[in-house]
């Protein structure tokens, strides 16, 4: 049982600070939209195909509207206009709209405007019903088959080829995996569109496409039925297409998504404003779809030192939590990320890691949490790396992580081989079986190293939150407080995809998603 370590009042204060910090950003979110949000709206309407050269229709349409300077009214509005012009299919809607000269895009009579919006709203409701029925299907199967015991064992497949991924995902499920993550190809987060169709070529991962999602989910449903255990699927709602991927993933019945309010800014040099706006809509979708998000605080301590920067993880988790709650996510959907990353050549690392993981548990008692394995200090000595991973398995079960990404003994070399996953799953199963309930066997001493370290880290996290509140998030990020990476508000990729909403901006999905 993780100690108290700190007063409840202190934790409440941290939460309050995080709310203060994010407050101004919600103002930004309220006032603006992005190309990606608008493409998501179109995808909700079923515009998921691609045109010639593989360019998604949603992109064709949004780019056209943006070029014409009218996207600020909302893509839903223009979709309605296209329908009014007699389009009988999404494809036709796109064709009609993109064919229109800019001067034909002026406003209609107030009555027609009203009609159009009513019609679009009706269609949006139907689309939302369809969407929800997909989620219900997923939940039904999950209930029917049941899941394994937490920590749910999460492994990645990353062959670059969706069909090889399927093979390996099935194998992993048979070897005991509860969650399959299909890692994306390295460059995808910087693409301002979602690639289309089944793909067989990728670097360091496989493209996230709706069709790839479908193929994998189908395979896992099949495998889950055989194994009589539901296998969860996750991918990345991250990069320049956060919201679109959230939609495609939810629609294809994924269970989780990597989704962080700041990862793109820090680790992908994506513009801040763009990221904040996109993350909000993507999280609204996740909230509605019962998707568990996985945040990326673990990444901070791959660039910064894990011992020195431990507090940044905690501070960021409070911020991520606030962003998430305000987007409607419930505590059970918060797979807040953290990891076992302290240099193993230091002394007391098991105590330090336990301290950190217990502190996270203490601060977020109802979140599943997502625990990541050692990566940065992994050695090419696979035997050592395996032993190192085993300690992370222990901390995961000890601190009741909901989700545990299993370490791979070949982490320092290559994306996992089929056998690497097998080895990791077998060890984790052993450790979980051996140590389940260990937290209930001990009381943590309030005067020990674990408790003292937890208090120290929490104290520093509070200082950082205070600074963020005082000087603003933008300044804090500018000073490199998170992951040792510095970014500016107007730097980074994708700022040109941000635009201020017109007064009559229309987005029926956002309205529905935000409805209490």
């Amino acid at each position, binding site marked *: 049982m993780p100690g108290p370590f700190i007063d409840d009042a202190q934790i409440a204060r941290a939460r309050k600070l995080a709310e203060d910090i994010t407050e101004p950003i919600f103002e930004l979110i309220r006032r603006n939209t992005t190309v990606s949000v608008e493409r998501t709206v179109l995808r909700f309407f079923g515009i998921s195909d691609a045109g010639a050269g593989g360019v998604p229709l949603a992109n064709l349409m949004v780019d056209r509207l943006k070029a014409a300077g009218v996207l600020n009214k909302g893509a839903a509005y223009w979709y309605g206009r296209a329908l009014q012009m007699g389009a009988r299919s999404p494809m036709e809607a796109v064709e009609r709209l993109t064919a229109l000269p800019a001067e034909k895009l002026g406003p209609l009579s107030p009555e027609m405007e009203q009609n159009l919006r009513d019609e679009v709203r009706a269609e949006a409701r139907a689309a939302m019903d369809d969407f929800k029925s997909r989620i219900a299907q997923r939940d039904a199967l999950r209930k029917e088959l049941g899941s394994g015991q937490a920590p749910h064992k999460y492994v990645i497949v990353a062959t670059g080829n969706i069909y090889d991924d399927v093979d390996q995902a099935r194998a992993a499920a048979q070897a005991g995996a509860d969650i399959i993550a299909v890692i994306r190809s390295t460059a995808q987060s910087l693409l301002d569109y979602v690639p289309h169709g089944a793909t067989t070529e990728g670097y360091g991962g496989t493209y996230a496409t709706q069709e790839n999602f479908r193929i994998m989910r189908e395979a896992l449903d099949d495998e889950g039925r055989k194994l009589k255990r539901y296998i969860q699927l996750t991918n990345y709602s991250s990069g320049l297409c956060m919201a679109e991927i959230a939609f495609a993933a939810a629609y294809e019945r994924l269970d989780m998504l990597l989704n962080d309010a700041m990862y793109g800014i820090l680790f992908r*040099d994506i513009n801040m404003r763009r990221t904040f706006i996109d993350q909000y809509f993507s999280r609204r979708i996740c909230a509605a779809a019962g998707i568990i998000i996985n945040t990326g605080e673990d990444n901070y301590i791959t660039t910064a030192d894990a011992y020195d920067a431990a507090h940044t993880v905690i501070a960021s988790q409070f911020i991520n939590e606030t962003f998430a709650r305000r987007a409607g996510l419930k505590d059970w959907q918060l797979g807040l990320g953290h990891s076992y990353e302290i240099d193993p050549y230091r002394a007391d690392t098991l105590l330090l890691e336990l301290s950190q993981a217990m502190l996270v548990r203490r601060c977020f008692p109802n979140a599943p949490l997502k625990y990541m394995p050692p990566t940065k200090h992994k050695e*090419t000595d696979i035997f050592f790396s395996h032993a190192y991973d085993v300690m992370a398995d222990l901390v995961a079960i000890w601190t009741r992580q909901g989700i545990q990404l299993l370490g791979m003994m070949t982490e320092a070399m290559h994306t996992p081989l089929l056998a690497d996953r097998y080895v990791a799953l077998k060890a984790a199963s052993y450790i979980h079986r051996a140590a389940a309930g260990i937290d209930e066997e001990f009381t943590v001493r309030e005067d020990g190293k674990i408790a003292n370290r937890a208090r120290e880290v929490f104290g520093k996290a509070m200082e950082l939150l205070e600074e963020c509140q005082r000087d603003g998030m933008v300044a804090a990020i500018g000073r490199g407080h998170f992951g040792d990476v510095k970014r500016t508000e107007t730097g980074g990729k994708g700022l040109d995809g941000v635009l201020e909403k017109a007064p009559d901006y229309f987005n029926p999905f956002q309205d529905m998603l935000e409805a209490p």
Partner: protein
Amino acid sequence: MATKPTKQIIRPYGDRRDDGVVQLSFTLPVPLSEKAKEAAAVFARKMGFSDVKVAAAERAADTYTFFIVYARTQHSLDYAEIDVPEVVVKKLGFDDLNALIKEKVGRRIVVFGACTGTDTHTVGIDAILNMKGYAGDYGLERYPWFEAFNLGSQVPNEELIKKAMARNADAILVSQVVTQRDVHKDNSRQFIEAAKAAGIHGKTLLLLGGPRVDLKLALELGFDVGFGPGTKPSDVANYIVHQVLQKEGKEDKNVHWEGEPK
């Protein structure tokens, strides 16, 4: 030069000298069965092993079996014949190196570095360039007689070259960490094409580094040198200084030094 050494035949050491014991593991795409085990043994023998013990056969999945094999190899090797360049000059430390640049080059050496292409792994290039350095060894930014520019990650090759040329850089440092499907090689080749197009190939020093880089690979790809895992900033600093001196005719072309890439 040392005289040709006498033969030194070696073989793997398991439990005694020259027993040739090797541990292997691999997966075969067949279901676990006696037949699969026999196949694993046949495989090991095909690979030239004798005394093959298929220690473990694990059901990795319905149609995959993971094997652990202990066996003996008959091969041996003349260790005296392994050819690795000899170390001649002692590597210089931080102060000595700065002094050497000051005295012999007489100006700050300009270097540009980045992790190029779609690769975002900055930790490696930061280790070489940033003040903080790596493993207790200062980064190039810390050297008063170096002027170091770190452009970060995901930098297009052309952009790196353009910026470096604008400052008349002595050296360009390219980091490549993601290697799946040889993306690092493709990107590196593309860098070299761009360098040729810009006319700096053969002029500006071109350094390649990363966990899967070594001298041989770097040369093959058209770089002047390659640095692999565990490289210290001072290794790189030494290399650059000696090369600049040699380019400027201030040092013999055949000088080797401790810590240079092998």
